[in-house]
């Protein structure tokens, strides 16, 4: 185990270095660029065997990643915001062709207005694209989830994206424990795809035309694979615990078991919520946090069980689903539908376009829950 101070972007690049994918086609975009940059340095220094392809756009980046993966090797890429949006068409091709690509997504607002800062509109926009989605609080989680994501992806033959908050995580430094290179290699194992294009002894067509006669069945297979991904994710976490000591699951429960009220949130904001939970607990207030890691497939039953004892819960979304419940709160409400004495749900949208979130605001959210002040969607931090 090596302990180093590094940014979230460097943590992603270091995970990629240990995975040592054969092909990495990538196009720079803020705030993902330091991942590509750090990895390019590894390539230049001969620390990885990867072929890095400097493509002319993200559409090409994902196309080349799909091509390499279909050919039969490990292929990875990374992007943000408009880059992910430009990839869009091929993002679905990757999952439709059942290619276990792992992509680091550094969350950034989508245009317009043009904005380089963090919110989750980019990755939430493609939540129905049949990719496994894992959200990370810190650089440490980014590193760990890259390895776990690869393992799950290759097992169920679905691509996976690992998210981290733009600038907050990607450019913020923290301590990251890296596994010993050999142990990491052992964990991910050799990649031996069942079918691949360069298998000349067993030729195969990948990504054929299928109309009303076959597409439904092919999409149903993806849905079944997603169900399997849930099981495989837990299995991979268990195995990962043995080599790292880190205990991951669908979500992290922070002071949740005996809490009266709680917040549900994704990515880096969980860190600030933990601070507030600690300070409020000192004052005897029973507040807690559920930090969700696995968003796709969504662990409905497990979330319901973890939240069912609460009086109320505030779900904090860092993106809108315009005209509907925001992406996270909608899923939490779904989870709680069958709970007989279900907690009240307060929907909060915050941090859009990188708007800062402060401890006092989180404290107010908790106080409102404790005082049973629950109502319409709160646009936390937005000027009225």
């Amino acid at each position: 185990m090596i302990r180093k101070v590094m940014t979230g972007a460097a943590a992603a690049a270091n995970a990629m270095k240990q995975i040592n994918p054969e092909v990495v086609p990538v196009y720079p975009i803020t705030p993902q660029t330091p991942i590509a940059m750090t990895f390019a340095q590894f390539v230049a220094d001969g620390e990885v065997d990867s072929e890095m392809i400097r493509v002319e756009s993200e559409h090409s980046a994902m196309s080349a990643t799909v091509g390499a993966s279909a050919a039969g090797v490990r292929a990875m890429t990374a992007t943000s915001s408009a880059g992910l949006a430009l990839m869009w068409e091929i993002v679905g091709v990757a999952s439709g062709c059942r290619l276990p690509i792992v992509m680091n997504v550094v969350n950034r607002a989508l245009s317009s207005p043009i904005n380089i800062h963090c919110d989750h509109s980019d990755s939430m926009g493609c939540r129905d694209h049949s990719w496994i989605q894992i959200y990370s609080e810190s650089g440490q989680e980014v590193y760990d989830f890259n390895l776990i994501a690869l393992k799950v992806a290759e097992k169920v033959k679905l691509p996976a994206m690992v998210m981290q908050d733009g600038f907050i995580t990607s450019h913020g430094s923290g301590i990251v424990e890296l596994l010993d290179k050999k142990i990491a290699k052992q964990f991910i194992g050799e990649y031996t795809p069942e079918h691949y294009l360069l298998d000349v002894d067993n030729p195969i067509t990948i990504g054929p035309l299928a109309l009303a006669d076959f597409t439904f069945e092919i999409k149903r297979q993806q849905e079944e694979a997603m169900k399997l991904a849930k099981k495989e994710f837990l299995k991979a976490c268990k195995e990962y615990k043995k080599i790292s000591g880190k205990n991951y699951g669908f979500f992290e429960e922070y002071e949740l078991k005996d809490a009266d009220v709680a917040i549900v949130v994704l990515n880096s904001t969980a860190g600030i919520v933990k601070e507030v939970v600690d300070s409020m607990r000192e004052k005897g207030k029973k507040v807690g946090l559920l930090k969700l890691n696995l968003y796709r497939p969504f662990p409905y039953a497990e979330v319901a069980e973890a939240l069912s004892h609460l009086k109320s819960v505030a779900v904090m979304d860092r993106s809108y689903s315009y005209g509907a419940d925001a992406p996270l709160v909608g899923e939490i409400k779904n989870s709680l539908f069958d709970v007989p004495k279900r907690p009240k749900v307060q929907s909060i949208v915050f941090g859009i376009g990188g708007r800062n979130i402060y401890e006092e605001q989180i404290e107010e959210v908790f106080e409102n829950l404790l005082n049973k002040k629950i109502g319409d969607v709160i646009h936390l931090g937005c000027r009225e």
Partner: protein
Amino acid sequence: MTKVPTPADGYKKLKEGGMVDPGTSKFFHTGTWRTFRPVWDEKKCIHCQICTAYCPDDCILTKGKDPKTVKRTETDMRYCKGCGICKEVCPVKCIEMKPESEFND
């Protein structure tokens, strides 16, 4: 052996992502797409084999293996889509494209 997916197959039976084994195109008679039919004049033909090389669907059949004596024969109408490339490349103009409506078969 080539397994051809059939519309009777359930989702568990099909390969992931709609992958298919090689050779399945034999089972799909793309000739039904044709609007114009290539009509070959055997008497004019010099058997240069340019059309057989250019046919994108490999459906101009040949007789014999020796390159010096190989003869072209009929077009395999089960697969010919009527693209007309054979007519375009023919140096002696022995292929004519005729509307399918002129035929009764």
